[in-house]
């Protein structure tokens, strides 16, 4: 099943054209990596998929789970099965991680016509995921990302991913700012999440995350368009030769 399809997607931010015609299809069971230098439009792509204000599709189409996203709100896209992993997870003082996670999972359940999750079941599940991600359950009582280290923030993102079980995870530079140990924990989370039913898109600068997560496709994005696609071998080529020369490919 097609989880995501981009056809000739062009987009602008504050009237500045950033994406210049992207074609991409992600099917269930696939893991894709989008690599590219700074300023190539990777984060814009993430925001445009999420339906963020200020980001405008100027041409082309986006389909999520086979349906066009036109007119869908941010939360509707999430409830359809899209999960965005943020490059810089922000802090929300005053809102506890626990409250945030509970309201998020309940929003998903209610949209499926189910009842809110029993608090005890919720706690069991969240504690189990936290343990697997080597996150202390103390983090649940604290405000969202407030006082978390860079690695803890990213693990908190993966915790949300594993709890919400979306159809498509679009992870924007989840590996940035991580030491090797944290990188391995995050990669383990992604590997546990992936299945034949869902898809993953990893957006990254570097090949190093791909040492821990096997990818099926690698796409090189430069100046708002995908200039080359291939298998995992392409990531090794970028690591060896850099992005130079790929722009004209």
């Amino acid at each position, binding site marked *: 099943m097609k989880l995501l399809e981009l056809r000739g997607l062009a987009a602008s931010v504050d009237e500045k054209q950033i994406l210049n015609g992207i074609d991409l299809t992600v099917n269930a069971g696939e893991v894709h990596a989008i690599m590219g230098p700074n300023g190539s439009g990777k984060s814009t792509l993430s925001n445009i998929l999420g339906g963020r204000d200020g980001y405008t599709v100027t041409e082309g189409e986006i389909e999520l789970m086979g349906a066009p996203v036109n007119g869908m709100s*941010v939360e509707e896209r999430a409830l359809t099965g899209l999960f*965005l992993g943020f490059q810089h997870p922000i802090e929300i003082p005053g809102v506890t991680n626990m409250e945030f996670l509970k309201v998020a999972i309940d929003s998903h359940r209610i949209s499926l016509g189910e009842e809110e999750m029993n608090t005890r079941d919720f706690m069991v599940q969240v504690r189990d995921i936290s343990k697997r991600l080597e996150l202390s359950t103390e983090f649940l009582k604290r405000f969202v990302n407030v006082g978390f280290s860079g690695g803890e923030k990213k693990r908190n993102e993966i915790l949300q991913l594993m709890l919400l079980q979306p159809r498509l995870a679009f992870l924007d530079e989840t590996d940035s700012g991580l030491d090797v140990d944290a990188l391995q924990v995050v990669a383990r989370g992604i590997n546990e999440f992936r299945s034949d039913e869902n898809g993953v898109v990893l957006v990254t600068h570097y090949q190093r995350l791909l040492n821990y997560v096997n990818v099926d496709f690698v796409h090189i994005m430069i100046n708002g368009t995908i200039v080359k696609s291939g298998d995992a071998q392409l990531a090794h080529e970028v690591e060896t030769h850099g992005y130079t020369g790929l722009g004209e490919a």
Partner: protein
Amino acid sequence: MAVPQPANTLQGDLLKRVLAHEVQETPWLDRSASKSLLNCNGFPFPWKGRWQYSDFRALVEDALSLEGAHNALQSSHDVDVRRFDQPETEAQTMEFGSSDGVGDFPLIDINGVLFRSGTKLSSIAKTGSVKVNDANGSVDRHLMSIEQDAGMTVEETFKTGNRVVLCHVRDNAKLEYELTMPHGEGIGYHCLVVWLAKGSTFELHLASKGAQVRRNDVIVNVLGENATATLSGGWFVDGSDHLDSQVYMNHRVGGSHSEQSFHGVVDDRARSVFSGFIHIDRNASATEAHLTNRNIALSTQARAHAQPELEIYTDDVICSHGATTGHLDDDSLFLLRSRGIGEESARAMLTKGFLRQVVHSEGGTSLLNL
């Protein structure tokens, strides 16, 4: 046709009416100190300075109209309680009428002329506690004294009426004050004045909704070294309510510390005002004083006015102040919504989170549904 009267004439007439007012039930109470201060200072010009946003005359008219007497003290523990209408000595009758020279705060003196009920509460134990109910549409006045090395916690609720609370915190004593102000249908004036002696501690936990008109003054006079004042609180004002909160932090001696943190939310057509004034005397070197006030407007017609002021007359101080007024953070809103949380719920979560950072009391948490 009636000729419109200039504002200062109207103010003069109002002042005369206050000064001529005699509270019949308490002829023995000496109100001369308050009257002479009013006579001397007069009334402020309306819609200027500290009265820029709130109708001073409406508050005075309201105080003049309140004729009931009400025993607001709900309970006390380890505290000596004396009602003002049971004076034992002449000095005690004078004490109630005096405002100890707070300065140019005419509503404190108007309260001194008009109040009909009140208490004197003294704590000599570390475990003193009192609960004070709403003024219930009356004019009342409470004197509190936390004696040397003693402690007292106050849980006060106030909606409407006119109330002045005067607190002396003696050497090394501690006052913890929870002031909870639910929505009020009418007009309300509340003033809390605190004098801090050497080594004393004052903590204020404020939580407020709005009222038709509500003015809330907090005046802290730091008179002793090593005294500490920590003030925090939040408010949520909606509908067409009005809340005007003013804090005056006066550091009269050095080596003292004050910290203020207030968050306000306004919605619908409501208006909030926050004025935070820090004064540091010439003799108050080695003072540390900080103030932050953040406001969020949830609707385009809501208004939040914020005015932090610093007046420093010495070097060797550490001071900061800041005030912001804006909307809910777009990035936070996007994060919550991107996890499937509907926009309305996400806004409610962020609004509560914003207030939770500064509202810690049980009463405040419950009032603001945090």
